[in-house]
């Protein structure tokens, strides 16, 4: 024989080939099973997007069909590499399977529940919420949670038992079989460890464009407008990996130091012109932002009818008396609270950031050079939230944004008082009535000349919605016909909205009676995800409209010294800082001068999509339909947004210096 190795003195040492192949086969089968299962979690849903179905067999069929696409195999690759990584670390076959399966169960439950609630898969930015386990588990279906935990425990016990039996050689003829399932060559094991860790970390270490290129090699095709649709198309694992490294904002083509100097000068002059008619000072005033969780107006939903009192009677009345009111165009449906909150504070719409930048508090604020926001105009800045504060990286984000105190249930330094945590029933979230009482308490305590900014984020109407949440609930849904479960949720929601409405009436009365100038900025952050008969893609505008108003008591109106004739029937959350300062008649910096012009001259950003606006008549228009003056303003706005978020920071501090 003339083999190539016959003359070699140093042939390659043979590996435990048979064992490795058996482990490889196990890993591949588990990886394929995982990918199918996760895809079932995407398809076995009520949303009706792209063959989502409540028929399990059909969902399974769609998931198997998904496996015929090249892009499905990225998920298999990642799962397989993950399996090999665990195996390389532990070098124990059954424990590897157990840990892998437990991880898969956790991921499956998390993905299924998140898609069920928001039609969105788990994103990398959600990992910051992993520390808020206590808060999150409350949102998970209890039966599913119990089932998952039980299954995980059973798997672990079986694995430990099998490992023990293998170790003690008590499996008879199978002893030899299982003893082969180990790395026998330590160098090979080390190589596998390095290779698997390296493969899994690619998306974490490369920049956004390289990450996209890496994923595209596997056939990944980003669905820009919806992460939910992205996960249906590419698989939730691919969607997760695609959004790890993100571009904050793509550099505008004319971005340069010279251009930013021009903008600084231009809006410096604009600020001077605006401030000629602005006479009030923020000192001695209070601005209270009220983010009303999941508050939509059921009366606006086409085809929806219910029996019971008008759930939004007081809200509609207050809007008539408010300084400015209308519909806010939310970016979220069923969730995304912190993203809307960011827009209302910073004055930048999500629609102009890169599509991958979906959670500003996690992906932008910690890394931005500066985060100018409306709270900085005021001396005292506080946020109240009757829940845990660890979601969406708020604690860190608020520090960066200059918030002095963040009152939450889990903050040892600034603890949300227990007396304001009562819910409508035993396990229900704190009522808006209680939340508003705490807010009033905070405002009333502020009697000095310092200006005050308070933000309250309520919890009462947060999902889940269930039977018995509101005792003696009189509300009944009559149209359209929906499943029993959906009907129960909607009726409970209606009761909640009504309670919020009553609480709002009381709040307005107390605000009216106060001698301190108070400006309330009230808005619903997004729809709840329970109106399953509304398609949030087809009826996008309607499904993203919530009510907003800016209400001022007499003391505030007297302070502003000028009749405000603000009008903004459709507003982006990013309009709120400029609208608030305008309502208060307060002097502005060049930064807010620009925002004022945007809120006056541009139609509202439709943050639920890209490149679209909604005008005063409620018509959706595209960027190309803007006038050239509007386009120029939009271009300037994007340049400033880029410079402050991700650019070279050419703008000086004077541009954003607050006028107190």
């Amino acid at each position, binding site marked *: *024989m003339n083999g190539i*190795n016959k003359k070699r003195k140093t042939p390659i040492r043979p590996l435990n080939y*048979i064992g490795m192949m058996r482990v490889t086969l196990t890993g591949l089968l588990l990886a394929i099973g995982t990918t199918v299962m996760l895809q079932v979690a995407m398809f076995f849903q009520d949303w009706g997007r792209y063959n989502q179905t409540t028929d399990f067999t059909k969902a399974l069929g769609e998931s198997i069909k998904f496996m015929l696409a090249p892009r499905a*195999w990225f998920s298999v690759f990642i799962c397989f590499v993950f399996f090999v990584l665990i195996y390389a670390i532990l070098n124990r076959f059954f424990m590897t399977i157990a840990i892998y399966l437990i991880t898969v169960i956790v991921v499956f439950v998390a993905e299924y529940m998140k898609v069920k609630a928001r039609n969105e898969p788990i994103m990398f930015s959600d990992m910051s919420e992993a520390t808020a386990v206590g808060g999150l588990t409350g949102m998970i279906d209890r039966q599913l949670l119990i089932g998952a935990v039980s299954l995980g425990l059973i798997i672990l016990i079986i694995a430990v038992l099998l490992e023990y039996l293998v170790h003690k050689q008590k499996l008879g003829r199978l002893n030899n079989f299982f003893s082969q399932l180990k790395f026998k060559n330590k160098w090979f094991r080390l190589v596998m460890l390095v290779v698997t860790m390296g493969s899994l970390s690619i998306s974490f270490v490369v920049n956004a464009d390289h990450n996209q290129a890496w994923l595209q090699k596997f056939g990944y095709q980003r669905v820009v407008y919806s992460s939910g649709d992205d996960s249906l198309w590419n698989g939730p694992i691919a969607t997760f990996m695609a959004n790890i490294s993100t571009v904050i904002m793509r550099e505008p083509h004319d971005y340069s130091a010279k251009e930013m100097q021009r903008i600084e000068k231009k809006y410096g002059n604009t600020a001077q012109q605006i401030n000629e008619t602005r006479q009030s000072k923020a000192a001695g005033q209070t601005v209270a932002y009220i983010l009303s969780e999941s508050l939509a107006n059921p009366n606006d939903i086409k085809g929806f009818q219910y029996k019971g009192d008008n759930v939004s009677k007081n809200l509609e009345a207050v809007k008539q008396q408010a300084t400015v009111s209308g519909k806010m165009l939310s970016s979220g449906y069923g969730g995304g609270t912190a993203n809307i909150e960011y827009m209302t504070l910073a004055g930048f719409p999500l629609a102009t950031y890169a599509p991958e930048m979906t959670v500003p508090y996690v992906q932008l604020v910690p890394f931005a050079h500066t985060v100018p926001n409306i709270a900085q105009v005021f001396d005292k800045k506080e946020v109240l939230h009757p829940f845990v504060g660890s979601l969406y990286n708020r604690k860190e984000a608020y520090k960066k944004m200059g918030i002095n105190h963040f009152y939450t249930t889990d903050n040892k330094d600034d603890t949300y008082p227990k007396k304001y945590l009562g819910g409508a029933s035993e396990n229900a979230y704190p009522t808006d009535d209680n939340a508003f009482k705490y807010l009033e308490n905070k405002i009333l305590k502020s009697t000095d000349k310092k200006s005050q900014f308070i933000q309250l984020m309520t919890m009462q109407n947060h999902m889940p919605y269930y039977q018995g949440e509101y005792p003696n609930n009189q509300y009944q849904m009559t149209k359209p016909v929906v499943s029993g479960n959906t009907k129960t949720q909607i009726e409970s929601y209606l009761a909640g909205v009504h309670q919020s409405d009553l609480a709002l009436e009381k709040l307005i009365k107390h605000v009216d009676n106060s001698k301190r100038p108070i400006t309330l900025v009230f808005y619903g952050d997004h729809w709840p995800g329970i109106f399953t008969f509304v398609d949030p893609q087809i009826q996008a505008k309607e499904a993203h409209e919530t009510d907003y108003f800016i209400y001022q008591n007499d003391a505030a109106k007297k302070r502003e010294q000028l009749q405000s004739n603000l009008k903004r029937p459709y507003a982006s959350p990013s309009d709120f800082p400029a609208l608030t300062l305008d309502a208060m008649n307060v002097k502005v910096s060049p930064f807010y001068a620009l925002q004022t012009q945007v809120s006056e001259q541009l139609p509202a950003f439709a943050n639920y999509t890209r490149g679209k606006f909604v005008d005063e008549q409620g018509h959706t228009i595209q960027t190309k339909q803007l006038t050239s003056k509007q386009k120029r303003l939009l271009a300037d706005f994007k340049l400033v947004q880029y410079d402050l978020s991700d650019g070279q920071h050419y703008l000086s501090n004077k541009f954003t210096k607050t006028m107190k």
Partner: protein
Amino acid sequence: MDTLKGRMKSLVGLVFILLMIEQVINAQQHIHIYQLLTIVTVPTIFFVVGYFIDSTRSFSHLLLNGIKKMVIPYVITSIVIMALNILASQLSWIKQPFSDVKTIIKTFAYGIGWPTDTLFGQSSFGVGLVWLLLAIFFATLIFNLVTKLEKSWLMVIAIIMLTAAGYWFRTIVQLPWSLEAALIAQPFMYFGSLIKDQQKMPMTLATFFVGIILWSISSISGAFDFTVAYNPHPILGTIASLFAVSVIYVFHDRVIYQIKPLQIILKYLGDHFILGLSVATLVLLFIQINSVMANVYTILIVLISIAVIVMLQKLILLIKK
């Protein structure tokens, strides 16, 4: 007595038939079958080439042997094509694939299978299946040089680097004489040479199923276009292809080879592989059949032509004697 050599020849025969199927089916209509075949046909050919290489031979011996067995048939095929192309202008029942003789000379001088980007600009023609002859020739020479390395690990690294070079060159331009295909063939040839050492395929049930899974995954991801050294995932695709080769080897060994009539036919085709490539090239270039069964007829014509030519060769030898 069955030898591994005989099995390898039979395997080549099987792959030749699969290669024919790959050539005649409509790649768009039967994309999954097409992609499935590409993962395994040409890689298996190089696997067998690697088995048959005698590493103890000198480079010059291999060079001369290669010229005799690969390059000369290639040149003869190109001359026949020239003649048939001229004839085609007079006969309506054969196609005229090339516009003129100059184009044929240019195309066969460059020696790549498909029209693509060359060092001299975009080419409009390819040489057809006989690209394999040039690829095998150069692959053999390259592999022989690699086997001169004393240390096994050095050899493995050299093979990896040569393969990477093949895929990398492809992104820039197609080198002449199917050089890139020769470079990316190295892992498969090494695999074949390892089998020669072991005298068996290290196959377990797990390996077989891993091979099936990886073969399927690779075929879903895309075709392995050896002609232009293209694989959607060079690293994973090469690994998957190696496994696919072992699957086809085992399947042939345990199933196909056990059927005596098939064994005889396939060994025959394997023995006349080079002739088969030339004949197949001519048939695919010049014969056009308008029929629902065109694909089947084409393959039959190729097989019959091989048999006829071999019989004629034997007849000539008999007459000479």
